């Protein structure tokens, strides 16, 4: 894959606004950064002197650690702020908190927030770069980029791949970002889940809808199982977790119907026995830990591209 695109964006807010060429540039750049993490000295001086702050208003281990390691391996200084210790608990607004942090000469802010669009508000109000690490039910661009990177690595291409996204599509920012990205790169995307968790009109995003997990498994090259967000199920979208596991959970028996080379992905954290049986999560078709490894490389690529890009 060769790409001639140049990166001119100061922020990464979502994959909806990115072109195919821009996505390919990130994936291509990430390939080089993956090598850095395999060295004895896992550090390059590319972002020396830059300061990256992670500002997380929702719990996260994987994404925050991944961003922090990515920044550190590029020699940037990092600082982590979580909601429980931030001044928003004292009534300060999100933008005020962010502006105060920025006033201490911060170059990039990595933001996760429960409200869709929160990173956009920050991008408009701040002078530093803003990277979306998940906003409400809208987008989680770096997760989708690392999923695409993993697919590219496993299959050598994305064009023409049949990718199924299974689970709570309604509340999933991972699903939305993946749909934007995968369809732009020419994959055929099918979404599958309970009717109550399927957004109305999702077909307009260029995906097929299925309610039959067995049929989906038989016809896919890769399956992205989504985490069932128990905290978002209070409104009784599901009769019971047990029923969900039986109808949409992926176990070894269901998976045995799939094609040779079918891979299973999950953005984590996994509810074992719910979306995936333990056997599948740890099985040889699972690439969950490859996704985590690739996440650092992809986030290094994003930080490298976004930081220092002058306002276009």
């Amino acid at each position, binding site marked *: 894959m060769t790409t001639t695109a140049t990166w001119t964006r100061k922020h990464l807010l979502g994959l909806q606004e990115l072109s195919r060429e821009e996505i390919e540039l990130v994936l291509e750049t990430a390939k080089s950064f993956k*090598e850095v993490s395999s060295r004895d000295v896992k550090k390059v001086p590319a972002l020396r002197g830059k300061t990256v702050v992670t500002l997380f208003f929702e719990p996260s281990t994987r994404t925050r650690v991944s961003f922090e390691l990515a920044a550190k391996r590029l020699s940037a200084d990092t600082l982590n702020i979580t909601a429980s210790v931030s001044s928003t608990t004292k009534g300060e607004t999100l933008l005020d908190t962010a502006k105060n942090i920025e006033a201490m000469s911060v170059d990039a802010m990595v933001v996760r927030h429960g409200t869709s669009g929160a990173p956009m508000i920050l991008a408009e109000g701040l002078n530093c770069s803003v990277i979306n690490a998940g906003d409400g039910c809208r987008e989680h661009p770096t997760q989708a980029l690392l999923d695409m990177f993993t697919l590219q690595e496993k299959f050598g291409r994305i064009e023409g791949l049949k990718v199924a996204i299974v689970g709570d599509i309604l509340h999933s920012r991972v699903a939305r970002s993946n749909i934007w990205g995968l369809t732009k790169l020419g994959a055929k995307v099918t979404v599958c889940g309970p009717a109550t968790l399927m957004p109305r009109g999702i077909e307009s995003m260029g995906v097929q809808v299925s309610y039959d997990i067995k049929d989906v498994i038989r016809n896919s090259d890769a399956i992205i199982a989504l985490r069932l967000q128990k905290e978002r199920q209070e409104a009784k979208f599901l009769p019971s977790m047990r029923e969900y596991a039986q109808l949409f959970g992926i176990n070894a028996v269901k998976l045995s119907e799939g094609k040779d080379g079918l891979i299973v992905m999950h953005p984590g954290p996994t509810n074992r026995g719910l979306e995936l049986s333990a056997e599948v999560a740890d099985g040889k078709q699972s690439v969950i830990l490859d996704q985590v490894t690739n996440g650092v490389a992809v986030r290094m690529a994003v930080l490298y591209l976004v930081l220092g890009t002058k306002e276009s």
Partner: protein
Amino acid sequence: MSAKIMDSDAIRRAVMRMAHEILEKAGPKDLALIGIRTRGVTLAERLRQAIKSIEGADVPSGILDITLYRDDLTLVGAKPLVRETLIDFDITGKRIVLVDDVFFTGRTIRAALDALTDFGRPAKIELAVLVDRGHRELPIRADFVGKNIPTSKEQNVKVVLGETDQAQDAVLVEEGRQ
């Protein structure tokens, strides 16, 4: 306007001579070549082949991308494309010959030295370049030089190699830097 300073025969002879010089100095023992992307990689491969034809020794070679070690990363607007570094042997204790096409300010070599020290501690690092055009901005010199070409700073030295450029080998000096 451009003048051809070296043709394919001259380049071939220069590479062969440098291979002899590299071997003359310390033989093929612990020797390894590392090419700096893009054309340094091609030249390193040619040197490797020449060393093999002279001495029968297969010396390891690697590829170095110095983008992340550049000292002007914060000055340029759009970030330059980063390509993979591929060094699949341990450089510690080795005699490393860094290979590049044009030796100019010395900043690329400075970046390459920084990058190499992240991979290990070679016994020695030497530098082989096809063209030395002068105008150093750092106290760095080459150990093996294909040809010294005095230039003005405004001129542009272009190395064309069959493997990377799909054209006949040549070294050209162009007026007015692009």
